[in-house]
C-alpha cells in the first residue's frame, strides 16, 4: 500500500496517515494507562514501513513519530547495552532494539513485561526489581577498618578468578529474566533470578568479603531456595548470562559452606 495507509486504532476507529513508503509491517501494541479513567487494556494495530535491518524499536519509534506521539515505551542506547527497552515481542521477553523485524516476521505484537507493575503502554515499573537487586548488596564489600590503609594498588585477579564471575557481570538489568521466571510471577517475596545471579557474581569475586552479609539474605525460603530450576531466565537473557546456573552455584556454595567453611574462599 503506497501513498496512503489506514492505521487501525481499535476496532472502531480508523486513522489516515499520509506516507510515501510501502507499509508492509503491522505492529500490534497492547496499551493501557493505569492512571486514566479507562484502565482497560486495548490492542492497537499500526502499519509501518519495513526497511533492511529494522528493529522492533525502530518500528515503535516510527509509529511514535508518524502516527501516535502518545505511545509510551522506554529506550536509550538502541544497541542492547542499557537494558531499557525490554518488552514482550511476539510472546517472548526480548529487547526491542536487538530484535530485528526479519527475525520475528512482519506482524509484530508487543506487550509490557509480565511480572512488573505497569507505568503505561509497554513501560514497566522497575522499582521492585531494583529494590530486590539492592537487597543483595550489589557492590564489592571490603572489611578494612578505618585504621587500615586503603589498598595502595588495585586488587589484582588471575584470569581464572575473573572467569569465575565474568559472565554474570555482563548483566544489563533489563529484567527479561525476572519477567520470564514463573516463580517471580507467583511469589512477590522471591528475590528473582537477576538479583540472585548478581549475588553469585559478587560471591564468586575474589576481591569481595561480603559473603556472610549476603548469605543471610539469600539463604531463605524466598531466596535462592525458591528457584525451581525452570531455566526460563537463562533462555531469555539477551546477553548470554545464565542466571539459573548462578542460582544453582549459590545453592552449592551455601551447602558446601555448611560442611567446610574453607570452601567459601576468603577474599585476598
Amino acid at each position, binding site marked *: 500500500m503506497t501513498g496512503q495507509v489506514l492505521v487501525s486504532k481499535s476496532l472502531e476507529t480508523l486513522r489516515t496517515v499520509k506516507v510515501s513508503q510501502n507499509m508492509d509491517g503491522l505492529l500490534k501494541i497492547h496499551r493501557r494507562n493505569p492512571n486514566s479513567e479507562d484502565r482497560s487494556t486495548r490492542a492497537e494495530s499500526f502499519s509501518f514501513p519495513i526497511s533492511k535491518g529494522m528493529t522492533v524499536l525502530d518500528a515503535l519509534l516510527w509509529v511514535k513519530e508518524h502516527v501516535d506521539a502518545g505511545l509510551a515505551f522506554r529506550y536509550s542506547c538502541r544497541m542492547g547495552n542499557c537494558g531499557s527497552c525490554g518488552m514482550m515481542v511476539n510472546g517472548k521477553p526480548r529487547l526491542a532494539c536487538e530484535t530485528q523485524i526479519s527475525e520475528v516476521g512482519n506482524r509484530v505484537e508487543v506487550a509490557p513485561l509480565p511480572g512488573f507493575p505497569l507505568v503505561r503502554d509497554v513501560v514497566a515499573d522497575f522499582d521492585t526489581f531494583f529494590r530486590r537487586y539492592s537487597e543483595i548488596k550489589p557492590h564489592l564489600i571490603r572489611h578494612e577498618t578505618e585504621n587500615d590503609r586503603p589498598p595502595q594498588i588495585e586488587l589484582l585477579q588471575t584470569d581464572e578468578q575473573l572467569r569465575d564471575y565474568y559472565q554474570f557481570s555482563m548483566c544489563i538489568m533489563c529484567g527479561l529474566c525476572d519477567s520470564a521466571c514463573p516463580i517471580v510471577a*507467583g*511469589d*512477590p*517475596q522471591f528475590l528473582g533470578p537477576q538479583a540472585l545471579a548478581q549475588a553469585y557474581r559478587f560471591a564468586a569475586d575474589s576481591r569481595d568479603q561480603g559473603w556472610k552479609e549476603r548469605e543471610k539474605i539469600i*539463604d*531463605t*525460603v524466598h*531466596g535462592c*531456595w525458591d528457584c525451581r530450576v525452570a531455566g526460563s531466565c537463562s533462555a531469555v537473557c539477551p546477553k548470554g548470562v545464565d542466571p539459573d546456573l548462578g542460582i544453582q552455584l549459590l*545453592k552449592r556454595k*551455601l*551447602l558446601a*559452606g*555448611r560442611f567446610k567453611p574453607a570452601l567459601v574462599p576468603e577474599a585476598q
Partner: protein
Amino acid sequence: MRESTLQLINIAMIMALLLTLPVHFAMQAFLGVGGYTQALAYNTVADRYQTLITITLLTVLLAAASYHGLYGLRRILLEFKSGPTWDRLVSAGTLAAGLVILGWGLRTIVVMGWGI
C-alpha cells in the same frame, strides 16, 4: 533455622529413604516371615517389630518419610500465599504435624516392639 540447613536435612532424609525403602519393600515382598501373600497379615506385621534391626529400619523410615513429605508440603503451601505471617504459620504447622506423626508412629513402634 537457615533454609540451607533444612535443605541439607532433606537431602539426608532422601538418602535415608533411598536406603531404607528398598529394604522395607523387600521385607514386604519376599524377606518377610510369611512371604508375599502373608506380608500384611497381623502376625507377620507384629513379628517385624520384634527385632532391633527392623525397629531401627522402621524408625528411620518413619522419620525420613515424615520429614521429606512435610518439607515438600511446606514448600507447596508457601507457594499458595505470600507474606511473613503465612510463612510462619506454614512452618509452625508443618513442624507440629511432623511432631504428631513422629510421636504417633514411635508410639506404634514402642507398643508393638515391647508390647507395652
